[in-house]
Each structure stands twice: as C-alpha cells, then as structure tokens.
C-alpha cells in the first residue's frame, strides 16, 4: 500500500500542484512537465518493477509512460489525478510489454543466462545480508525463486491486478479500468491471483518461521 498519500491535505496539495504543472505544460512551458516526472517517477518505477520483476524493463516503462503522458496531455481531464493517470498509462504499457516479451521468449525457446522470470543476476547475490544461517540462506533463496516463479506464472491480468491491489493499494475501479473489465471481474482477477499464489507457495511457507527466514520479521 505504498502509493497511499501521507495525509488528505498533502494529497490535495500535490494534486493542486500537479494540476498547475499540467496547465503550464499545455500552455507551452515544456519544463513544467519536469515537476510531474520528478514527483511521480519513483511510484511508477515501483509499479513497473513489480509487474515485470526486471529493473531494465521497469526503467523503460517509466520513460515510455511519461512520454505517452506528455503526448496525450491534451486529453487529460483536469479534474482527474495526474498520478493515477500516468500510473494507468504505465500499467497498460507494462501489460503490452509483458505480452511482447512472452512472445519473444517463446520464439527463442532456448534457455539463456536469464531465468524464465527475467531476473538476470546470480541468485546468491539476492540473498538478504542479514540471513543468519546456511540453512536459512538456502531456504530463503529457494523460497524467493519459487515466489518469483509463482508471480511469473500468473496471467498478465492476474499479476497486474495483484500488484495494483496488494502492493500499490489501487482501488478496484482503477484496476478494472486498466484491465478493461467491470469491477466484479476485476475483483475476481485479484482473487484468482491470490488463490494461485497460495496454491504455489503454501507448501513452502507453511510456517511463519520460514517467512521470518526472509529477514522481514523482527
């Protein structure tokens, strides 16, 4: 739920400042768009990374989302929230990109140095520094790999719905708009995603000790 604003007042202040930046950009002041890019880049990156699990892809999605937002700024309704709008553009582009990548991967077929989940680095380098024992280290690496695989096995719509709802705290209407579904179907997509993740991961995380081994619980 990282996207939630600190307070209603700060959210309103940001929305007002965004609206002003949009207005100035539309009036021909191109540098006013910089405020919007600098303010929303981190949030869009987090969404894109969680959807793709790949930093390079996520960075490209961020750039493309802002380029598209700039190009379509004339269609942006002033009453809407710029952050939500660019977020939606990024989610749509990420879905297209994931589909494209899936096709390319299927075409290549031969396994390369990359994992199926797109993570390029050595799994050992991804182990949390605080992992206390070799046993936990092994468990942690295995669990993490399984989680990445379970996320990668979701359909694009399920992964998008899960990321947007569980991690980004988006409303069902917002998810429905990105997936071009009605709200009932969007809720079902969230449900299916959690159900599939549970089915894949429950045997591995049956006890809370294993979750602790990931280094998040004190």
């Amino acid at each position, binding site marked *: 739920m990282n996207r939630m604003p600190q307070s209603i007042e700060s959210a309103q202040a940001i929305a007002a400042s965004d609206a002003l930046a949009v207005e100035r950009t539309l009036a021909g002041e191109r540098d006013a768009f910089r405020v919007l890019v600098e303010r929303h880049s981190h949030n869009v990156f987090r969404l894109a990374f969680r959807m793709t699990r790949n930093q390079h892809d996520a960075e490209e999605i961020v750039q493309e989302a802002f380029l598209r937002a700039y190009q379509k700024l*004339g269609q942006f309704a002033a009453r809407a929230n710029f952050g939500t709008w660019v977020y939606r553009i990024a989610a749509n582009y990420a879905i297209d990109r994931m589909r494209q990548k899936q096709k390319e991967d299927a075409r290549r077929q031969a396994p390369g140095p990359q994992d199926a989940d797109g993570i390029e680095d050595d799994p050992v380098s991804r182990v949390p520094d605080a992992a206390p024992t070799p046993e936990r280290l092994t468990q942690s690496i295995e669990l993490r790999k399984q989680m990445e695989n379970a996320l990668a096995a979701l359909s694009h719509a399920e992964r998008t719905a899960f990321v947007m709802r569980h991690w980004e705290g988006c409303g069902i209407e917002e998810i429905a708009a990105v997936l071009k579904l009605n709200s009932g179907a969007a809720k079902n997509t969230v449900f299916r995603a959690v159900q599939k993740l549970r089915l894949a991961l429950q045997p591995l995380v049956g006890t809370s000790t294993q979750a602790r081994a990931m280094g998040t619980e004190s």
Partner: protein
Amino acid sequence: MKHMTEQELIAYREGVVEQRAAISTHLAACHECREELERIEVVLAALDTLPVPDPGADYGRRVWQQIAPRLPQRPEAWWQVWFQPRRLGAAGAIAALVVAAFLIGRMTRRDTRPDNIASAEQVRERILIVAVGEHLGHSERMLVELSNAEPSNPAQKQVNISAERGRAEDLLQENRLYRQTALQEGDTGLASTLDELERVLLDVAHSPAEVTPKQLEAIRQKIEARGILFKVRVVGKELQQRQEAAQPAPAQNDSRKKERNKV
C-alpha cells in the same frame, strides 16, 4: 456454523469485500476461519519480502534527462488526435453526419408541413443508409481479412494483426455513432446488428498486435459464433437495395424497417 469461503477471506484480506463487518464478526467467533486467514496472510507476508530496488534519490531527474530531448515543444491538443491519418476517416464520417443532421434540422424547422417533415425524414434516413452501408462494407472487409490472416512467414509462430486492430479501433468509433443514430431513428433491427458488431470490433481492438494461431482461432470462433459476418452481409445488402431504390414511398420504407426490426 457456516464457514467463510476462500474467496471471501481473500477479498477480506485484500480489502475488496462488501460485508466487511459481518466477516469480522464471524472471524472473532470462528477459530477455523481465523486460522485459514492466517494461512493466507503467511503467503502474502512472504511475497511482501520480495525486494524492489531503489532507483536512487535522483531517479526522477535522470528520467527527465532521458526523456526531455524526445519531447515535442508542446503536447498534442485533444482535437489534434482526430487529425492523425488513421483517424481522419472516422472523423470525416462523423463530421459529415453532424453537418447532415444540422442541415436536416434546419430544413425541418423552416417548414413544418407534414409533407416536408416526411421528406426531411427520408433524407435523414437515406444519409444514414449510405453511411451505414459503407461502414458495414468496411467492417466486413476487415473481419474477412482478419479471418484469413496468416503469419507473413510460415516459420513465424505469431500473426501480426496490428493493421486490423487499428482499423477496428476506427470502425468502433463510427459504429457507436451509427448505432445511436439508428436507435434514435427507431431502427432497432439495425441498432441490434450494430450492437453485435460493436462487441466483435471491441474484441479485435483490444487484442494484442501479434497473436498466436490459437488466439487468432479464438477470435475467429467468436466472430463465427455470433454469425456477425452473415448478419452484416444481410443488413448491408438490404441497405444497398434501399439506397438503389429511387425515392421509396414512406409506407414501403416503414414496412422494411419493421421487417428488419423483427430479425
């Protein structure tokens, strides 16, 4: 005691449930459901440990530096979207209809004698017939081409349908306008065919630019299951006949509309 379903517990956990208070009350009293919810929590808590790299405090600035040289001086105004080459056709058709509707409206206001009202209605319907006839012809061609689409190279596993998808997007906008006009004109038979066509166009417009043969087959089956090509041909043919018939009598006109409304 009736236990909560997995779907209800997941919806509760993810905050997308409507009867939240009722589930909370049940959970307070039901040990089994609480345990089931905890099992869901453990999986989600483990997933929450997956890290997201920090792109750095200056990330926003870097993104700006990367995209700034690629930005035009001014964003596109909302109306410029309609002047993109692929949208010009739809924009032209809509503009022609608006102008025609305006002129007919003026004719109707100037002279409200029954003969002239009937004449204005005939003109309005003829314009609709011509425009919709062309629209159905374009839609039919696009659907036929889509049904016959194949990979450009037999070695390829994907079929590129981006051209058909782009055309479906344009046709979709025209279709909405014609469907609304047909409804206003009381031509429910035509409106119903256009409504079915709209669903197919929507499917095509929302398809990926490249599809697998399996996905393409699914699209073909949807088109076939709705019998949309047949309906489009039948209505298109009928509109063509009506267009060719010189000055049809109002009574005959109405009876044809009524016949189609029965389809």
